[in-house]
């Protein structure tokens, strides 16, 4: 569904922050903000929900721990409980200290890698992906705030110029 969006350009992150707050106060829905670097507090000003990626990471870590315990128990205790250098392989707990380095590393491995993959999937990042930024300048020194237009073009334009936008564009865009 193609719809009309207004893109306001800013050249300073402080001005951008104030603009976001003003636009929020005027009850307009901000579709997206493009920045060349992380702007501290922008997510709070836009009212974005906090990320839950740390929670997924914790669960992946638990999964990794379980995999390590299951694997070592199966190989070292259940399948072939060999006597290797006098280590007690009668039960998992008796030989556990020797497994802790593996348990630790697999916990970290699962927590880290699965979290990164989750991040890529949720933020739709992959090789050969077409870049989504509306203007190459947003990767260098400009900030763009994008607002969907519902027939209130003039009013929006005035508001955005008032917030210190250095350039305003109207464009047709596919919003997902």
């Amino acid at each position, binding site marked *: 569904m193609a719809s009309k969006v207004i893109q306001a350009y800013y050249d300073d992150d402080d001005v951008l922050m104030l603009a976001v707050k003003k636009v929020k106060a005027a009850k307009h829905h901000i579709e997206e903000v493009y920045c060349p670097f992380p702007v501290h507090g922008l997510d709070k000003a836009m009212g974005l929900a906090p990320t839950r990626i*740390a929670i997924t990471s*914790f669960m992946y870590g638990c999964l990794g721990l379980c995999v390590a315990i299951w694997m070592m128990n199966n190989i070292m205790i259940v399948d072939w409980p060999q006597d290797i250098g*006098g280590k007690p392989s009668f039960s998992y707990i008796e030989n556990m*200290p*020797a497994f*802790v380095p593996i348990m630790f590393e697999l916990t970290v491995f699962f927590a880290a890698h699965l979290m990164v993959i989750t991040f890529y999937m949720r933020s739709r990042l992959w090789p050969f992906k077409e870049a989504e930024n509306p203007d190459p300048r947003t990767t260098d020194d400009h900030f763009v705030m994008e607002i969907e237009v519902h027939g209130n073009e003039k009013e929006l334009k005035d508001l955005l110029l008032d917030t210190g936008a250095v350039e305003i564009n109207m464009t047709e865009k596919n919003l997902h």
Partner: protein
Amino acid sequence: MYTFSNRLKIGSFIMMAVGALFIITGFLSAPSTVEEAKAIVASHDDGHGASHGEDAAHATEGHGEAAHHDSAHDEHTLAQLKNRPWSALYVAAFFFFMIALGALAFYAIQRAAQAGWSPLLFRVMEGITSYIVPGGIIVFVILAMSVAHMNHLFVWMDPEVVAHDELLQGKAGFLNPYFFLLRAAIFLGGWIFYREYSRKLSLRQDESDDNSNFKLNFRWSAGFLVFYLVSESMMSWDWIMSVDPHWFSTLFGWYIFASMFVSGITTIAMVTVYLKSKGYLPDVNNSHIHDLAKFMFGISIFWTYLWFSQFMLIWYANIPEEVTYYVTRIENYRLPFFGMVAMNFLFPVLLLMNSDFKRMNWFVCLTGIVILAGHYMDIFNAIMPATVGTHWGIGIPEIGGILFFGGLFIFWVFRALTTAPLQPKRNPFIEESRHFHY
């Protein structure tokens, strides 16, 4: 300015009085003859007296003759029972002293690192480190009493034992009573000097019109950290590892350091939360608490890392001369030994992992209490197996020690907090600290 609330003051006096009473009871109920010791063992022999053979073997090393074995065993039991009130006193005295020393190390690190978040808490830390003076003196007096043969905590101080023990003779160059006391005096002197001098510079900085005191304090803090790392490591050999003079471990100094560091940070967090709840620290916000809780979390894991590294290396190689340390602990101290890992690792890791929980005062206090109890158990596990062996317990002497030194600690720390404004006036980082937000 902070005013010492009467309820807290009376509470600390009651703790000291009850603690002193318990300590005296503990000393009075210790046996003085072999017959009394036998009677006590007979009435208490309900399970954890099973492995005397090993301890007796340890005591009779060098004697060897079977005929002497029984009487040597009885003598040894008597020595262990006599040691119990002394060990309880020593463990508690060292534990509370170690909190002050850990807080001092944290304080020096904050100064040397020029941390921007913590200057608001400097007075709280200075209050806690004030206990280093009475606490250090008490520990020193107990050590001097050991040297004077008033107790049998350090077996290498007994010339009779050394005469029959070639290993101890080999170590006598380092482990001899006078050098031992001299070292203790140097360590304590250095720590107390830095604490008092840094406090003085910190107060002077408030009144001066330039930053020269602050800069001088920075230099002294950096210097102190160098001295501290060396002296703390040697202190842990002297005061803790040498109760097991046949055993040695290379990362022991770090291990004891982690224990005192996390206890010190936990105490800073708990005292801060208490003072804030009473309205004395208006500029401290939950981001400061969050930072302290992160340190509690991180250093708890660091402690566990060292605990496990020490345990696993010795368990894996299983060299008899090293592994006896853990054999006695796992056989006779199973619950305190593994319970302490749960208290010092599992509990803080699961409770303090969540960022929101780290900002909740009651959560930080609850975890803090468990961490402090866990590190008391850590010192308990380090000292007791060598001094009382199987005759351990958490009874009147141990609780008395905790109450007495806990009361003294509270009294001394909160009294010190009343002597200066709780917020430094013109620390260069104080504005940053006031607006600290994470």
